[in-house]
């Protein structure tokens, strides 16, 4: 502290130096702690989180039909695929996929994006989040060159297992956390 270059005690921190640094440090930490509530308040609130899971009865979803349900403010596609569509998805070699990760919240990350790892675990049902992984548009069902989904915004094509095949989207459509509460009722989230 200070400008006295010849001060004998210049190397030896004084009580004043300690108080100065301690006060400055306390002010910095206190300031940061005071700031935190103002940042954290922007995160999803308790009532938003409470609505984060829903139940849906899949019994009425017919073969080849897709139903869109709202989950966390966005669409989730529940699609009972035809045998041909499942066969189409099974026949694909994982190594040709742009995104080889299953993107399934029920499996460890890095699981291969095979048909089994993508399906909802109940016959031919497929349940995927309905927002394109590019910029969040809602893809159109049973469209595109791979018979799965086609996103009209920037031209991403998904196959019948909701896997990205062509276009700017970086990831497969995500499979949300699923648990079957009965034979036909699924809990999403």
């Amino acid at each position: 502290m200070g400008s006295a270059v010849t001060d004998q005690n210049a190397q030896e921190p004084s009580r004043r130096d300690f108080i100065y640094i301690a006060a400055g440090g306390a002010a910095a930490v206190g300031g940061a702690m005071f700031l935190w509530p103002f940042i954290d308040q922007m995160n999803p609130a308790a009532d938003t989180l409470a609505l984060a899971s829903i139940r849906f009865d899949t019994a009425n979803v017919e073969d080849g039909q897709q139903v869109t349900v709202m989950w966390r403010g966005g669409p989730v596609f529940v699609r009972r695929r035809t045998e041909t569509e499942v066969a189409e998805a099974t026949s694909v070699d994982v190594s040709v996929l742009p995104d080889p990760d299953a993107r399934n919240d029920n499996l460890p990350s890095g699981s291969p994006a095979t048909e089994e790892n993508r399906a909802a675990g109940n016959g031919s049902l497929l349940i995927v989040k309905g927002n394109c992984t590019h910029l969040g548009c809602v893809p159109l069902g049973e469209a595109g060159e791979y018979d799965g989904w086609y996103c009209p915004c920037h031209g991403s094509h998904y196959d019948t297992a909701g896997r990205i095949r062509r276009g700017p989207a970086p990831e497969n459509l995500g499979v949300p956390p699923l648990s079957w509460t009965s034979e036909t009722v699924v809990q999403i989230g």
Partner: protein
Amino acid sequence: MSGPSTYEPKTGFTRWLDSRLPIVRLGWDSFVDFPTPRNLNYWWTFGGVLAIFLVLQIITGVVLAMHYVPHVDYAFDSVQRIIRDVPFGWLLQSLHANGASFFFIAVYIHMFRGLYYGSYKAPRELLWILGVVIYLLMMATGFLGYTLPWGQMSFWGATVITNLFGAIPVIGQSFTEWLWGGFSVGGATLNRFFSLHYLLPFVIAGVVGLHIWALHVPGNGNPTGLDVKTKNDTLPFHPYYTVKDGFAIVAFLTIFVGFVFFYPNALGHADNSIPADALVTPSHIVPEWYYLPFYAILRAITFDIGPIDAKLGGVIAMFGSIGILFILPWLDTSPVRSMRYRPIARWFFLIFVVACLALGWCGAKNPDDIIIAMGSDAEGHATGFTVLTFAQILTAYYFAYFLVILPVLGFTEKPKKRPASIEASVLGDKAVQPAE
């Protein structure tokens, strides 16, 4: 540039005030007796135009907020109510919505003026940087405001733009949820966007204060790019430039109110007359016209660059295209400010302006649209020169202009002869020769 103050308080009250709070003196020195180069052309009037539009946007916005309801169930209807039921609401809403567009028209002219005449060069680097900060704040404010009517384009524009942040590695997902206050654009998002949309214009006003302060230290640049040397090079701001700026402002406002009264929706998008629906995406999402060039740059990056995937690459390119303006003062190596005397640079500048406009055109198109058809592929789809390819070429030029052309030209270009002084550039031989 500002010499000793020439303000002389004439009454007892102004003398009393001047010795306590010299605010009248500040106004006098800044806007009445401020020495201004005598050769400013009409490209220099847009600063004044912008000040008027900032005030207009704040006044109309404050009034609209008295009628607007920031709730997902009422937002769309409350805007329709403002337009249909509130006395003069149709006028206030139209002034505000079209005001944003004309604010951007004026700021783009103002920025291209700066680029052509080298307004960013020493000693005005900070003045330029503050201007880029204002521009970024304007973009943020415009984006937040466009969300508020809660139409389809509002909702999906907000969804696409906030999803851009999902491209950030590791924290992307939690960061976007933090922005949204939920798991998608929704009620929490609308509330906070309204709050921030109300806040940011006042931040802009603050930075505008700094921008004008930084302008009044070196004083205005001018079309010759020469420094002011003598009193003969300048004129007092009032009445010369108050009148010139005033005329330009009236002319610009005339075009503006033409839109407000006769084409109030010409600059908007039809899809925004449909209430927001989280389950239906419009077939073709486009941002407001003033973001289109950057949207085109975002979509031009369709390839991975090393470890950076295409999505993140597009986001980096888009923000980089504005970020690069911050370091422009150090990228342009030419000591000559005005491109009037830079025979090669002015051509590259002209191409740059055309490239920016063309990028805007690409931003409004579908990337896969074909501009020049050239045969078809094996599956029978038409092939050819696409909007995407065009946008990629233009994006390359945009960055090359700043990173290659301006740095290199400073060394290779031979500038034309410049006039002896600002006065000589206006009066020619009749100029009083400065004493040696």
